[in-house]
């Protein structure tokens, strides 16, 4: 498993180093500029959003890389158990997530004095992001990306989400909705639920990978 992880990290080292570096520079700049001092938690959220955007960029770069499926095809033929391979494919995300969790933590710390609430926010936000990534990855693992019949479902789902957002905006309920979704971020229960969900989806993803009927790209 570690050999695959090591290879993946080395293969993507430039983009990983670049993105982590950009995130670190951003956090350092914010720290030196003192612009967050005395601000409310909105600043912390903004910081986190920026760092998370960088993280998502990195994930997209790695996940959507043209030859990812080909690399999987190569790895499947190696004398390594399919479970370990499935876990190795996720280990790189966990590795990257740790780096970005640290950044978000520093980001939050700069805007707020340390408190447990901030710690829960870091846990929740990272788990939430991981959860979203896991859902997309499951969709991809099931072979639904690019499949004609699922394109319609996906387009339909996107349309429904947009309609829902539109309705919430027009009815003035959007802020209440966002608060309802993100309120648990600051509580230990919320952080625990998001983390457990993320771990569950991570395991589900490994299981789906091991049960694929084909590893042909």
């Amino acid at each position, binding site marked *: 498993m570690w*050999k695959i992880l090591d290879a993946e990290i080395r293969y993507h080292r430039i983009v990983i180093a670049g993105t982590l570096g950009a995130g670190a520079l951003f956090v350092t700049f914010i720290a030196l500029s003192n612009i967050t001092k005395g601000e409310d938690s909105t600043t912390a959220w903004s910081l986190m959003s920026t760092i998370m955007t960088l993280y998502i960029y990195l994930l997209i770069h790695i996940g959507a890389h043209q*030859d990812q499926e080909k690399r999987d095809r190569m790895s499947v*033929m190696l004398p390594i158990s399919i479970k370990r391979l499935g876990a190795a494919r996720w280990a790189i995300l966990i590795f990257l997530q740790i780096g970005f969790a640290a950044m978000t933590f520093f980001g939050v710390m700069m805007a707020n004095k340390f408190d447990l609430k901030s710690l829960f926010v870091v846990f929740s936000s990272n788990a939430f992001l991981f959860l979203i990534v896991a859902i997309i990855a499951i969709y991809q693992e099931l072979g639904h990306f690019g499949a004609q019949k699922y394109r319609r479902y996906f387009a339909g789902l996107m349309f429904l989400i947009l309609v829902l957002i539109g309705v919430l905006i027009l009815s003035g309920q959007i802020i209440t909705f966002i608060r309802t979704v993100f309120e648990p971020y600051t509580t230990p229960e919320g952080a625990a639920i998001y983390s457990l969900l993320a771990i569950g989806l991570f395991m589900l993803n490994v299981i789906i990978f091991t049960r694929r*009927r084909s*590893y042909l790209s």
Partner: protein
Amino acid sequence: MTKAFEFNNVVKRYSEFALGPLNFSLEPGTVLGYIGPNGSGKSTTLHCLVGLVKADSGEMQVFGRATDPNKPEWKLDIGYVGDAHVFYEGWSGEKNLKFLSQFYPDWSDQRVVELAKRFNLPLHKKAKELSGGNRVKLSLVAALAHSPKLLLLDEPTSGLDPVVRAEVLDVLFEILEDGERAIFYSTHILSDISRLADELAFLDNGQLKLRAAKEDLIERWRKIAFKHAGNNFKLEATASHKQEGADHQIISFDHEATLRQLGELGAQNVQAHLMSIDEIAVQILKGAGHVENS
């Protein structure tokens, strides 16, 4: 003796195609050519064996070990060159091979150097910069560097120009002539395999039609021409029969039996001609039902 590989009732179904049930095996040290037209299921057979595709039912073994994806030791005995040559595209050939070497205890860097030299392969180039021929060569080096006991080759020369194809085959045949490896070579180009194969298996539309020793096929199959005025007779062991007046041309898959019967019928000017493996394969894949009895 433990088989190099064994298929027991292996079936793989797709919406418009089904492979199997396949029941066959390969003895160590034997070269088996797996012949069939495009779309006959050759690649699917190999994909099932190396674990790229999961069979719907049946069992496979490699040197006595079940092809369990969670107990992958059986893959240590396999060298596979598939129809697609997959690497870390941004890495050099050398770096790709270094990565692969970590997984095989019997990997030999010296063998890599020797093979790369034989193939005239630029290992310093990135995989994505390699030509089609060089990608095949890199796959072959990767498949041979750990001296596998079973070599699986899936149309490795497909898409190569004739010069590179001949070059790859020459070197490959030379390397494989030691006779120590079991080789399963899938192709629809018979000239690729006819020099090397001990046995040939013919696959058509997902079904194994015939498996026979190459020498046995060459020995038994004949084109036979003869003269006979009558047409009210049925010859045994014939794959085809054409008649123009008193002139008959048949293809026999057991020429001794056919010639004996022609003698009994009083046929005249009987002439039997040897057939090439290509000609025999065409007849087998044309699908005369009684060919199975040969």
